[in-house]
């Protein structure tokens, strides 16, 4: 059984303005796909093809017009507030813009431990990848809880390759790549199973982006993560993904293994997308 099952998911933005012509804009149009545990599904398409909207819909950050999303056997879209809160522990998002996605008024420590505070969890005492976070006991002292948060934060920093001293600083003191690491640490804090990575490297320099991609790959191995990796960059998607879905005008035009899509594309649009990607031929 797939970890995430998306069925007939549709999002129509209400018609407004002259271009809409009454019917509304179908940002995501009747999309069905499965994401299997442990895999990385790359989602590619040009700007405005609905990739980001699809990612947000799966996490229910945007309410869909119709369709269903089943996560780990549970319905994401019909769940109550409390159920949704529990589901949020399992699925997280990494954003494209490393400057907008961190609250500029919070220290890094507050940012990466906020997930624990929201869900009332103690920091895990041992090494992060192996220890489950347990619900806090009501009698846990304030001081003890704080030091637990701190040690969890320190582990998270280590996991994403940042110094522990970064915890005392504010986001504006970091470069784009470092901020992206902080955003990843926050997404990891709840030990999710599934992460939507929404163009996590397209705002970064190529070399910094490459470091982030490698980090994501390492984290997938260490934490047993499943990714929906959204990107418009074919090389990055090809490097990271086990399967690729190609999206155009709100529809999935082609889906298959990375090799199938990149070596033997069936659809005209996929071929165009592959051809449009700037590639350098390296002498053999």
């Amino acid at each position: 059984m797939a970890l995430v099952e998306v069925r007939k998911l549709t999002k129509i933005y209400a018609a407004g303005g002259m271009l809409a012509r009454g019917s509304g804009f179908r940002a995501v149009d009747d999309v069905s796909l499965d994401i299997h545990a442990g895999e990385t599904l790359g989602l590619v398409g040009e700007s405005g093809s609905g990739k980001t909207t699809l990612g947000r819909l799966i996490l229910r950050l945007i309410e869909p017009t119709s369709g269903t999303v089943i996560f780990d056997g549970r319905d994401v879209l019909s769940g109550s507030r409390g159920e949704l809160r529990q589901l949020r522990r399992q699925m997280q998002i990494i954003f494209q813009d490393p400057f907008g996605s961190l609250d500029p008024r919070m220290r890094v420590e507050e940012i990466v431990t906020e997930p624990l505070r929201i869900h009332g969890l103690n920091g895990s005492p041992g090494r992060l990848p192996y220890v489950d976070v347990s619900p806090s006991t009501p009698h846990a002292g304030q001081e003890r809880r704080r030091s637990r948060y701190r040690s969890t934060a320190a582990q998270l920093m280590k996991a994403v390759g940042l110094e522990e001293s970064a915890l005392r600083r504010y986001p504006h003191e970091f470069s784009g790549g470092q901020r992206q690491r902080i955003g990843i640490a926050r997404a990891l804090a709840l030990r999710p199973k599934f992460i939507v990575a929404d163009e996590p490297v397209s705002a970064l320099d190529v070399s910094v982006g490459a470091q982030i991609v490698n980090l994501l790959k390492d984290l997938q191995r260490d934490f047993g993560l499943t990714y929906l990796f959204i990107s418009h960059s074919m090389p990055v998607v090809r490097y990271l993904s086990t399967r690729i879905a190609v999206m155009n005008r709100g529809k999935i035009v082609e889906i298959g293994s990375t090799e199938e899509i990149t070596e033997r594309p069936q659809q005209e649009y996929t071929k165009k997308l592959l051809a449009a990607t700037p590639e350098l031929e390296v002498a053999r």
Partner: protein
Amino acid sequence: MKTIAGIILLVAAPATSNPMIVEAPSTWRSLSRAARFNPLASVGIVFIAIFVAFALLAPWIAPYDPAFIDLPHRLAPPSTHHWFGTDELGRDILSRIIFGARISMLVGASVVTGSLLIGLLIGSLAGYYGGRVDRFVNVILMNAFLSFPGFLLAIAFVAFVGPGIFNLILALVIGGWVGYARLVRAQVLAVREREFVEAARALGASDLRILVRHILPNMIQPVIVQGAIGMAGAILAEATMSFLGLGVPPPTASWGTMLNDGRSHLFDSPHLVIFPALAVMFAVLSFNFLGDALRDYLDPRARIEAGL
């Protein structure tokens, strides 16, 4: 077979962080530099400090009892005994100004706090939830209040419930909250769309948490500036209301009441009017200076230009 340079880069790049961290100057140093850059702000802060000291320590600072009537020395011009002279009942004007600072500061602070709290609550509800809530609050409630001059509303309210310091504060809050609510709504609308708010939602944060922990801290600066300038407006409004006899009842010294009392002696004993008028002027000016300075200080672009 084709090899892609991007992949080579990806594989070759080591996953290490580089500690390229920019140190911001300490708050105190940047504040003292800001003060040097904007001397008016320093003037404003010094005057505000003086007025606040007057308000807090009036019984110990004032040379005379502000209500002590000394008819033989009525309308005395400024002298070494009475620095600012005496009024038509022989009361020491300096002492009355010092005690009057209490009313001004109390009313000013209460009106700003009250308006701010209501404005924050209503403005953030309208801005955050949008939709029907916003339409009701913004279109109906706020526009209804905005279509009345706030001052007229305050006069009508006091005329209806009777004068007194509490009613005065209430009246000015009724006229004053809309300005804050509008500002807060606009700010919340802007901050709500930022990605860290979405990140908090993705983490499962409650609306209250998002509003209080994420949105509020990121929009409060212009509201604080508005509050400082609003303080000046409230002090002026208090003086005006008291001048019209709709403020604090007579035995209590208030700058506005003093101006009203001195009106009939404007030409034979102008010091009755000059000193309380100066007090109002300096108080209003100081808070405006402070507000301007705060706005400049809190605006990062202006700050970078000034090299702070």
